[in-house]
């Protein structure tokens, strides 16, 4: 059966080049690993699954991912392997790719909740680095996606680690606490890999923010509030004028233009999240208090080293948190109470959290995300929850259904450092796991017995 389909594949791949839609995907013999939350959501949306599947690891599973030809959303279905033949019969001559997972772990792709992927070639070389724009007069409306290079070598280098989607974000600079607008991309390396251009706005408070807003926490918080107030004026000119004057008094170079403030309206209405980088517990409380004025703000805290100290308030106010479970040192005075228990206590309080590898080098190294999640497990978090924190949880914050858009086959537990992907699919398309790094590896592999000079390998 498989051989026949492989034969057809050659023809189908040719046809696909002329097709508007990607092919469906069938993965057999999978050890499906799916976090409980996603699985429950899935169960709620279908009546096809027997209830005894509720457990995060399911052996002998056939996965069918429909790409939603004809304008439908892609959908992923799970079946017992015993039903595989039946599914194939039902699919008939539908175009689909078949892959035997050979009993290995299969998961959705990994979603990096925060990164600068593809926004710089060499972090230390200014001209190649578009992560921030200190000399620019616009801030909020600048989109990370406009700086994204899908063919940066870092895209393929990180794809190889199982990352299928990533948040990309600018950082604050110049004279504003507002860093700009962040985007969501997939790691296909295709020119159309921006999944969402305007996914969120980032503002930076704490020690990062004070550098760009005149020098104090008072100034940076005020600048953030005034920005939101200006946007809240709608088209009331008097309101806007007075606020703009106020902002100019705080910082002569800071000016929130009409278009910028139009943009912030989406944030105020809660249409897109406002990510705020903040570390100290009292600063977190001040951010939570913003919701008293701007009730619909969808706030995601970034960093939040001391979040555990105010975990209850965070959970009660439906504030989301992106944290690095490796952070445990008092690296600055605003993180003196950093602790490995941060994520554990947030979990106990019922807060919604994602794991970001913020301490990774330059945030292009998002491939270590699974290691950071693995260490959250080592420190006592449930595997399920840690895995959700790098997949379905952050993806859902940006309305992306990860399990319906990506699948990865691994050679072991994806949260263990010794495991790596063996196959990856994004939107039904199998992705290459080759990269500049693997080509260098192959050229210099000491077991390579070729007689060719190395530049000809």
């Amino acid at each position, binding site marked *: 059966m498989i051989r026949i389909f492989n034969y057809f594949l050659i023809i189908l791949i040719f046809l696909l080049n002329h097709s508007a839609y990607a092919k469906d995907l069938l993965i057999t013999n999978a050890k499906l690993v799916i976090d409980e939350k996603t699985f429950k959501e899935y169960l709620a949306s279908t009546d096809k699954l027997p209830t005894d599947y509720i457990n995060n690891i399911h052996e002998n599973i056939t996965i069918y991912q429909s790409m939603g030809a004809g304008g439908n959303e892609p959908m992923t279905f799970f079946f017992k392997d015993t039903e595989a033949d039946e599914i194939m019969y039902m699919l008939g001559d539908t175009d689909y790719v078949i892959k035997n997972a050979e009993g290995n772990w299969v998961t959705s792709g990994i979603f990096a909740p925060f990164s600068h992927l593809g926004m710089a070639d060499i972090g230390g070389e200014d001209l190649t680095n578009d992560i921030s724009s200190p000399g620019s007069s616009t801030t909020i409306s600048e989109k990370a996606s406009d700086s994204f290079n899908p063919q940066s070598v870092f895209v393929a280098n990180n794809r190889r680690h199982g990352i299928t989607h990533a948040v990309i974000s600018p950082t604050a600079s110049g004279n504003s606490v507002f860093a700009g607008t962040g985007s969501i991309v997939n790691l296909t390396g295709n020119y159309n890999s921006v999944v969402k251009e305007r996914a969120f706005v980032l503002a930076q408070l704490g020690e990062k923010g004070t550098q760009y807003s005149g020098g104090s926490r008072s100034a940076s918080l005020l600048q953030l509030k005034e920005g939101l107030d200006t946007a809240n004026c709608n088209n009331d000119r008097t309101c806007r004028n007075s606020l703009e004057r106020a902002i100019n008094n705080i910082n002569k170079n800071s000016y929130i233009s009409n278009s910028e403030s139009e943009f912030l309206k989406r944030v105020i209405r809660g249409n897109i999240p406002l990510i705020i980088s903040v570390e100290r517990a009292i600063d977190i409380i001040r951010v939570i208090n913003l919701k008293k004025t701007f009730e619909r703000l969808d706030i995601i805290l970034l960093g939040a080293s001391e979040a555990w100290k105010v975990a209850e308030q965070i959970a009660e106010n439906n504030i989301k948190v992106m944290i690095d479970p490796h952070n445990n040192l008092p690296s600055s005075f605003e993180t003196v109470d950093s602790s490995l228990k941060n994520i554990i206590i947030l979990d106990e309080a019922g807060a919604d959290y994602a794991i970001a590898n913020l301490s990774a080098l330059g945030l292009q190294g998002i491939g270590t995300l699974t290691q950071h999640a693995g260490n959250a497990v080592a420190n006592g978090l449930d595997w399920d929850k840690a895995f959700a924190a790098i997949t379905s949880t952050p993806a859902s914050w940006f309305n992306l259904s990860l399990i319906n858009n990506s699948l990865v086959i691994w050679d072991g537990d994806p949260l263990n450092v*010794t495991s790596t992907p063996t196959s990856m699919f994004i939107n039904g398309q199998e992705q290459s796991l080759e990269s500049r790094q693997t080509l260098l*590896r192959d050229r210099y592999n000491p077991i390579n017995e070729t007689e060719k000079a190395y530049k000809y390998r």
Partner: protein
Amino acid sequence: MVSVITINKINIGKRLILVGIIFINSCGGSLDTKESIAFQSTYAPNLSITTLITNAKIIDGTGADMFNGSICIDQGKIKKISSYNVLYDKIEKVDINCEYTNKIDAKNRFVTPGIIDVHSHLGNYPSPSVTAHNDGNEITSPITSEVYAEHGVWPQDPGFDEALKGGITTLHILPGSANLFGGRGVTLRNYPSRTVQGMKFPQAPYTLKMACGENPKRVYGDKGGPGSRMGNFAGYRQNWIRAQEYQEKRNSGRTNTSRDLQLETLADVLDGKILVQMHCYRADEMAQILDLAKEFNYKVTAFHHAVEAYKIGDILKENETCAAMWADWYGFKMESYDGILENIPFVHETGACAMIHSDSDSGIQRLNQEVAKSWAHGNRAGLNIKKEEAWTWLTSNPAKALGILDQTGTLETGKRADIIIWSADPFITYSRPEKVFLDGQLLYDKNNNIYPRSDFRLGYGVK
């Protein structure tokens, strides 16, 4: 555009350049001063407890196969280590003959030597990383071989305590990499102490930090040079010539010449007393440095970072120079662009001396995971390296590069009892150190809440 400084602030500050404080020292005196007695180690662990660890799965750090066995600790040393013969599921006990006050059943546990980090800035770029704490790099001249890293080490850095929880028992603190000759490095025991002298590894040789490539030329490019890699090499050579002259004068026994701290360090390198630890990324540059060492007849003990070491494993082997590497840091600057995940295993496979290093207060807490990653990637690329061999990247090879392999780095009779008991196989992420011994003294016991806490940690959250 983000500047280099912004990048520093985010992540790589401790390796790049931060503002230092002027520190120039010159003492009078004659050249034939005897071996310096200044700043001697006062390290004094409590050696009174005798311990027997039984039932352990032991990776002894020599590269030999793991075995089930027991370790007897007496007077801070490994008095005896023995194996049980496991044949056809029958365990034949070998008598270990150990008098002990404390017995630990390490059933289902892995036991390894304590980890040695050959490249750390704990203490000289401590937490919190306020500007007042930037004591790791004397960025006032490209030639500062007169400075000693230990004079910039703050023993209250909370990072030492967290590193201990990750199994670090010995660590090497280096000056930063702004300068061609950065100064002397110091090897420390990870022992809670009020003073640096109380942490100094007794009789460990001094080291000299040198730096290749981008950092020196960037920092001094508009401050009189070097401004290029050419200038870097001219700077090395001019100063080795001065050092040779100083060495000759010193050997001639002439008195009434003032002692020169800068040249003293370099002459000690030429005399073979100080080990050269050289920050270098690119393969071609490392090869040129090895030629430089031949010109002046000294040895490069280890290249640090060595992101392209995998391209020249054979040259490293031939020169008996080690490479201290990361598992997956690369791409943050041009000279680190060619990093691959198999760097350590490839260097190991060619027969050169390979090891992990952290250069990070975070990475130092999980060096076993960094090795596990590299090991797995190497084997996936077709190598066949055993876990036991890979363990040498964590303990015995760093000990070799620091000149302390006769003291620590393996679990062998007579060596310091620097030991980690792991909750499970240390090549698995979920395994963490449960107990860490330094000279037989239990300094960290996860399940019994025994751990050190720096003065700095006190008083936060007190209402």
